[in-house]
């Protein structure tokens, strides 16, 4: 089976303007959402308490709310269904630091009489820990971006590095916009999803860039648009196939993986779609935008090649004892 059976080169660069507009619009929309509604930080980052309770039969949410609100600390607690009508999650922003008796114990006591239930999960994160986790998360993002920037600069050129990071920012921004839009609680798992996305988005971009690098080196073409169009077309099947297989598994993870990894799955689903799109329509046009010069790169590469050959010659001579 083949998606594209003919060796055809599609004119992606010629039609890049409308896609650029779409991308800019989506990014602006994402930042608008992030600025107005904002990320909904879960307890991992903001601190607080989560109690997951499973009832025998449907959970009496109204009754639970009445009984819990007797205690003023829980006035702002939210009670929401979690995956099935039997199961609910009670969330609130406060936490206590007593080891023997925490807020979840209080909740359990207050819930007595609402039916037969089982406390299945309690998460308590103190405000200090939440702050530290947030700091660590941001650090992780920055450091991985920086490390990858250096790696690509060494393996390609700084313009490739900057272009791929811009595409990355594009992907992460839109994924975060989706997180806000779909009201996903931002916890550690979402951070992991975003970091996975970071790797995935770069992965996709690099496959295309690798082809561009190869074309610049090996072909007689000098026009950047031609080279980019050719490279994207050549890698198109791969881009779509890999995205598809990854999409399959993330889709099953999202659909069947259980409520706890629902947000994780959703973030990745959006991310994979956006990442695939950006590696075709965003990353490569960025090279043009950054004024990537084919001729200079050719010269640089051939110089590199020459140096390598010289070195090998020297070594061969040395090993034969000529020098």
């Amino acid at each position, binding site marked *: 089976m*083949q998606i594209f059976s003919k060796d055809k080169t599609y004119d992606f660069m010629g039609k890049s303007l409308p896609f650029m507009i779409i991308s800019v619009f989506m990014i602006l929309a994402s930042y608008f959402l992030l600025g107005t509604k904002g990320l909904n930080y879960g307890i991992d980052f903001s601190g607080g308490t989560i109690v997951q309770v499973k009832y025998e039969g449907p959970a009496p949410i109204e009754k639970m709310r009445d009984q819990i609100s007797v205690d003023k600390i829980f006035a702002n607690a939210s009670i929401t269904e979690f995956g099935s009508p039997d199961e609910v999650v009670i969330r609130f922003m406060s936490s206590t630091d007593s080891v023997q008796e925490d807020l979840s114990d209080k909740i359990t006591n207050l819930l007595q009489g609402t039916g037969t239930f089982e406390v299945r999960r309690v*998460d308590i994160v*103190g405000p200090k820990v939440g702050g530290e986790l947030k700091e660590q998360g941001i650090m992780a993002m920055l450091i991985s971006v920086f490390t990858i920037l250096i790696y690509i600069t060494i393996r390609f050129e700084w313009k490739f590095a900057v272009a791929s990071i811009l595409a990355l920012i594009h992907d992460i921004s839109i994924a975060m916009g989706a997180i806000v839009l779909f009201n996903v609680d931002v916890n550690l798992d979402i*951070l992991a999803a975003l970091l996975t996305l970071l790797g995935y988005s770069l992965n996709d971009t690099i496959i295309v860039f690798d082809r561009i690098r190869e074309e610049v080196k090996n072909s007689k073409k000098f026009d950047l648009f031609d080279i980019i169009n050719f490279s994207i077309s050549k890698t198109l099947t791969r881009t779509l196939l890999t995205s598809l*297989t990854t999409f*399959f598994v993330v889709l099953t993870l999202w659909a069947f*993986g259980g409520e706890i990894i629902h947000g994780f799955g959703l973030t990745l689903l959006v991310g994979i779609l956006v990442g695939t799109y950006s590696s075709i329509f965003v990353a490569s046009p960025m090279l043009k935008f950054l004024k990537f010069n084919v001729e200079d790169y050719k010269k640089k590469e051939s110089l590199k090649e020459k140096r390598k050959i010289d070195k090998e010659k020297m070594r061969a001579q040395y090993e034969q004892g000529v020098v």
Partner: protein
Amino acid sequence: MSKGGLNYRLVIFFLAIVFGVGFSAPTFLQTEKGAKISLGLDLQGGLYMLLGVKTDEAIKSKMKSIASSIKFFTDDNDIIIDDLKIREEMVTLTLVDPDEEKTLDEMLKKIPGLVLDKNTLQYKVSLNELEQEATKQYAINQAVETIRNRLDQFGLAEPNVARQGEDKILVELPGIKTGEDEQRARELIAKAAHLQMMTVDEKRSDRAYDMSDDEASQYGDIILEDARSPQMKHVLKEVPILDGSMLTDAKVGFDQMNQPVINFSLNSEGAKIFGDFTGKNVGTHLAIVLDNKVYSAPVIRERIGGGSGQISGGFSMEEASDVAIALRSGALLAPVKLLEKRSVGPSLGADSIQASMVALALGFILVIIFMVVYYGLAGVVANIALIANLFIVLAIMALFGATLTLPGMAGIVLTVGMAVDANVIINERIRELFRQGSSIQKAVEKGYDNAMSAILDANITTLLAAVVLYAYGTGPIKGFAVTMSIGILASMLTAILGTHGIYQYFMPRIEKSKNLSLWFGIKGEGK
């Protein structure tokens, strides 16, 4: 025509599969012996806690024990002092007889790390900064040791207690199955188990209910509740006679009424202090205080030698046993506080395993079918690599004793999606060469060459992201990063080396059949 048959790539791939299957077998078969992957708390249920230590309290309690030493020394040497008081992080006292100044000063000099502020005969004793820091550090280490001891004796499976970062303590209890167990474990962890012998202030014992804490403190007194009936109060001298640090053993026993009690014994120093004190104070009340609650305050009838005593307070059998454990493993110098807690019931863990297994299986099957439909036998080859990859990931995790968490499961699922990437890249390159009219042998060889740089660069960037994730992530995130990294590394071996070996092995047959549709899922006849 190429040679085909066995080649080094295939041999390495085969060894890798043997390794993968061999070392993941204990995990699959749950054998007694062999390294297995253990399930994380989120999958098997259990309690995870991150605790902080209130180190300021450690300094206060150190000051208290210094005050006790001063009291014992002055009593022992008939030095008369007045107003011995504990003020936050300072001990104050007034010496009555100036002739004894030298003796007292010498005694105080023997205690390391003290700062002495003297105004004629008024003493202010506190700790210097170095000693304060050392006390704090000691309190954290001691808390880790103590909590570990207690949990070891509590009888739960595989408790893990470790110091984390500067001042935090990590506690993991996978064995917790019920809410009651959890409650008991938490109480055991947090119990200060601070045993003190104190004197009742006979002069003011009738003022227990009308004196404020501040007023009591003026007299160097402290008002504490009774353990059995909290509304009952006792007025005690603030400076204890001795504390639990001199305890050598504590056991559950029974009194005449057949009620559980705790029998404790003191070391020789404690026994001497206890004996001397009771000898000098026959007729007064002695209070046995545990965690600031008075358990009993009997009248001293005679000198009590031998250094043993009893705590009775209407304990249940379980309580008595937990208190005895806590006393044996020592008091917490400073109380602990809860920073983070994650508690997962075993039923939820089982649900999570099931759900992620379903996702893994479904995703896996989808990918496998897709690869065969799209690539024909080349898809089968890629699938063999994929399955081998999965076994190797599990084997390496088992060897490292890694813990499989829910995010770790997600990491494996993702690896499945991404592991076929290398084969997609290679197969596309091979097809491209076919379209250009390459021979089968040349298309396969060159296909691998051409694909290599893209695969390497792509995998290395993902690996870099995973490493950073590991370095900066906490707990569950680390698990995710670990499975991702192992998956990427294993896929290099299986998807690149392994599949290449398989093609080499079958090359004569492929060349003979010339059936590109069967072998590579592409129309046309090969050369």
